[in-house]
């Protein structure tokens, strides 16, 4: 079977274990409040997507570009970018030079 002919219904229902894998991939907490009801909603939404099996797509290429006419290329020159201070301004945890994150696998004397 070619990849293009894979149909949604052939994948079958998503299992709880598979959903947990996806939640993990999305960097979300599977134990967060409300995640139980999310699973039910997601299964319902995915079931709704099966309507796409009814549409004939033989010979149709996937859209890769939404613009209706060719996009003009700009000059290959750098634009203004944020200064270090501007970039740091919205971080809750920071030094004068860096964002702070929990230390992993060793670190400097500051503990970060």
């Amino acid at each position, binding site marked *: 079977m070619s990849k*293009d002919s894979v149909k949604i219904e052939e994948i079958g229902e998503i299992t709880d274990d598979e959903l947990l894998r996806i939640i993990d991939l999305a*960097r*979300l907490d599977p134990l*967060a409040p409300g995640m139980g009801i999310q699973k039910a909603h*997601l299964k319902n939404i*995915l079931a*709704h997507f099966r309507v796409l099996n009814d549409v004939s797509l033989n010979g149709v290429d*996937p*859209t890769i570009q939404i613009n209706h006419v060719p996009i003009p290329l700009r000059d290959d020159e750098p634009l203004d970018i944020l200064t270090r201070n501007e970039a740091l301004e*919205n971080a809750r945890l920071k030094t004068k030079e860096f964002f702070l994150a929990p230390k992993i696998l060793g670190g400097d004397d500051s503990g970060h």
Partner: protein
Amino acid sequence: MEKIRKYSIEQLRYELEKGGIHPREILKQSGKQINKCEKDLNALNRVTIDNAADKFDSWSFDPDMPYRGIPYVQKDNICTTGIQTDCSSRILEGYVPPYSATAETRSREAGFTLLGKSNMDEFAMGSSSEYSSHGPVQNPYDLSRVAGGSSGGSAAAVAAGFAPLAFGSDTGGSVRQPASFCGLVGLRPTYGRVSRWGLIAFASSLDQIGPITNTVRDSAIALSVIEGQDGRDATLMALENEDYLESIENGIGDLRVGVLDVSFADWVDPRVRKVMESSVEWLKGHAKEVKEITISSFDHILAAYYILAPSEASSNLARYDGIRFGSTVDLAEMGKDVDENTAADLLDYYRKNRSQGFGSEVTRRIILGTFALSAGYYEAYYRRAQKVRTRLRAELDALWEDVDIIISPTAPSPPFKLGSLVDDPVAMYREDVFVVPQAMAGVPAVSINGGFTDKDDDGISPLKKSKMKNCTGRAANILPIGIQFTAPPFRESVIFRAARTFEKEHA
């Protein structure tokens, strides 16, 4: 003074230019309306009017800034230098952008005065403006109903007379549907006409900024202000800016109109069908030709959209980890030691930040998008949805050979009750059925008020207006119903012409 509230941008500019009014009077009236209605509507995440009034101590009309002193509202996902922009999300709580969106900069350069940042569905994901960390927006026509979404705060603010202009973002109807629910004009420009620079990304191949106004002429003015190259959005087309007002009064006698066959959607409210039918009857007496059209993939496009938009969202929102901006969980509360963690702990930190920061609908769409893009599912979901998109575009391209413009409902129902769909995502998504195709095809569309219905009407009885007034100043028992004009790419001038002609006879 009260009459200022109902003035269009054009009228205000005229009065300012001839000296019949001072900007402080306009801002005073806006402040009065905000004080009167905002506590009920919850349309604004923050008000900036206090800062604005001081700027007009020594004021004179400046033709280079012709709209100076006319207030506008900016959606809270459009960056405003030095003013908090949080997308109605906890994960961006306290975020103050160090730069402004192009649409914001151009609005300021034209003289418009920022009144406030509007409430919205978190990260523009929603159709009711109920998924907001600032609480739901109420509809000015009926406080027990939604204002539409995701630009519900922008629409409510214009409908309530806070300002004659608000900007929204339209990823899958988020300008047009709230405009419909609040009796206003809402424009989605062609993809590539307005820069997305500074618009906090939801789904980059779909996002467009558009104006919400009281009149079609104001919509054309607002588009003229924000459109055009800025060298910062790689998908922006190199177009000459158009003078939309030049042709806007030319009527529709030369236009062939396609009427979308909505028989596939048996859930469309009879009151919406009634407004559509009367609009089509009117068109038959004014347009060159009116004929029914069908789009075979129309009922599949909604499912395809709800695969593609979340897929792009899951990628765009991957940047929010709590490190560089927004809310951050306390490591100590997580039981972690800042000095002794593993890589697994860091991932746990990201997960906690993201799960604490994102609301339920955004979480749902991130999971959906991650699912559709993940190994094993990509071909069946994402790639298939992109093929549906190609097919829709091909169908529309063929249709433009036969018609110049398409009329359809904007939403399948009048504004619905707060809370009625919030726990049923599929039913909520279905509200977007008539506004998603234009976004998927990248074509322009405008929603304009098509008529009113009684809140408790059966769709048949004649409308009897109550003497009681709502926040908009209209009868308290009525609800607006929008209709939508869709045109080929870059033919905004045609939809403005059609909408203006309709407006003149139906306002």
